[in-house]
């Protein structure tokens, strides 16, 4: 099992990513949207933890009716400069009320983590060739931010007035 960053610490990853149709392993699983759409009943009945992985062109609207039955949603970043996943994360947390694990996967390394965390991601499957310890430090690149986001409900222009 590879390690991931979760809730600010390096931990073993319990999930297996499933992208090909067939029987589900006796394991925690994250399935692609295709698998989800074709094997929804089987995935929901799976006796382990389960969730869905979305690609940048797969809007989370497609799965909102099942969100409360999912343990995890993984948003994939095939290239980190495609920033749609940041908005999906905000929508999932703020509008659709998803409270499970929200994971960033793909082209993920130190320099993305701070923004990702702010948008509501709490776990990070850092790219295999990148050092996890180095990546972990990226979560604390900044200690102040101007904007309201998922990690901070009040923009600085309100917090300043309160202080």
């Amino acid at each position, binding site marked *: 099992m590879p390690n991931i960053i979760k809730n600010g610490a390096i931990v073993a990853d319990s999930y297996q990513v499933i992208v090909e149709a067939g029987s589900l392993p006796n394991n925690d699983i994250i399935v692609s949207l295709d698998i989800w759409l074709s094997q929804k009943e089987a995935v929901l009945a799976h006796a382990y933890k389960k969730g869905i992985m979305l690609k*940048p062109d797969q*809007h989370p609207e497609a799965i909102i009716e099942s969100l409360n039955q999912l343990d995890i949603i993984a948003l994939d970043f095939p290239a*980190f*400069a*495609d*920033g*749609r996943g*940041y*908005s*999906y994360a*905000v929508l999932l947390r*703020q*509008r659709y009320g998803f409270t499970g694990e929200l994971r960033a996967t793909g082209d993920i*390394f130190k*320099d993305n983590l*701070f*923004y*990702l965390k*702010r*948008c509501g991601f709490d776990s990070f499957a850092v790219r295999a060739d990148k*050092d996890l310890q*180095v990546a972990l430090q990226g979560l604390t*690149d*900044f*200690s*102040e*931010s*101007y*904007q*309201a*986001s998922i990690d901070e*409900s*009040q*923009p*600085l*222009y*309100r917090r*300043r*007035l309160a202080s």
Partner: protein
Amino acid sequence: MLCALLFKHSARLMYQYDAYDQKIVDQRVAQYRDQTQRYLAGELTEDEFRPFRLQNGLYIQRYAPMLRVAIPYGMLSSTQLRTLGHIARQYDRGYAHISTRQNIQYNWPQLEKVPDILAELAQVQMHSIQTSGNCIRNTTTDQFAGVVAGEIIDPRPTCELIRQWSTFHPEFAFLPRKFKIAVNAHPDVDRAATAVHDIGVYIVKNDAGEIGYKILVGGGLGRTPIIGSVIRDFLPQAELIAYLEAVLRVYNLYGRRDNKYKARIKILVKALTPEVFAQKVEAEFLHTNSEALRVPAQEFNRLASFFTEPAYATLNDNPDALTQKLNDNKAFALWFSHNTHAHKKLGYRIVTLSLKKTGVATGDITSEQMEAVANLAEKYSFGEVRTTHEQNIVLADVRQEQLFELWEQVSALGFATANIGFLTNIICCPGGDFCSLANAKSIPIAEQIQRRFDDLEEVYNIGELDINISGCMNACGHHHVGHIGILGVDKKGNEYYQVSLGGSSGHDASIGSILGPSFEAEEMANVVEEVLNTYLDNRQDNERFLETYRRIGIEKFKERVYA
């Protein structure tokens, strides 16, 4: 001590960082230093490093890196300008270049030294954050903000609000393409080319007398020049940030990412139609317009408190000292009438220093000149300086009785060419001499035209005229909105120039029409001259070039130039 006093003195005229702002900028310096070190150590690849260096304003150019430093809405203190001069001397070749978006660019810094440059900038409350890359760029506005009569309100508190909101916005750091916002607060004049921005924010007053914003989206130049469309006629002031969030989210989710030439918001707005785009934004706005995002009136008051009036003296217009010099000295009188502008306060004048002297690259300024301008600003204009969209510098608060002595000193610096508003005040990108994107050189074309029109009497007779030159389709020189636009194109490895006529960047914004087949470099002054002769032959009364063009159309120009 003196330095601290001077800084404090200028403090009333522009935004001052508090501990929050300073910490954010300092932490950015540390972050970028780490990124640079990891890149140099091979831990970040070229492709990985690129977006991060770009979001710090660092391009890799034709011969060297180029560092673009942000000048938020064009406002600088003398202290900051001195630091910019010091950086040019210490880390570059002793000069820098003012861009059309009010920023300043260094053409020869070493990549390894950029973190040190950023650390020096942070000490004077400056940075290069988001001056490049596919993110929200520096917010620009009227260089006469706060000192010109007729504004609805001063646009700078709104600009600063947007600056803070857009700085490191976690959701909008990796947009489909770059994103530029400009703010206009003057119903009669637009000096910031607001209508050709991704978002144009117009400060307006509604029938009830309330101040708010009119929002335009989808303007832009580049390959597909488009004047933006108004999608909201009136937005209450408090709702600006929530509305901007909605626009940016719609763009981030639905803007094209498959083709970088079709990735700007203007393409999305055009594809959806402005009406449908507006509906999507309004639907999103229903969600974003929360209590938390509403900007409290106290915050606007806090921001406005940084832009209060300096200690103006009680003066009268046209003091004897000025009138006498205007009568005695023709050169001074010309400079006064063209390079200074009416001020909202009696006895003051807004002065534009022309960085458009023939033989000097447009917008270029040396370390010594920066330091000299910083001194002049302290002596004559409350220690505050502004950069302009037209790549000049403004001293905003000069006493009329001191104009003559200021003019003498500005002349000695080479910044008194009395051409503001006229054809030799050319907007020009760095072009093929520096930029790796350029198809053709632009600086020598500007110089060729300036040399042809070296007789100021002739220039004044031609009257108000914007010539804008870009070295490629990216349109950094805003050629589409020049009354005369010149675009460098590549034809089988040779540099050619396409001419367009009738563009405008004002409230009457328009995109110029292409005159016809492109020309060789050495023909350009002749072409411009023939265009202007056509105008002069057809001009009625006091028509400006643009008015004549709009009345008679492009055919007459075409016939003459290609005859």
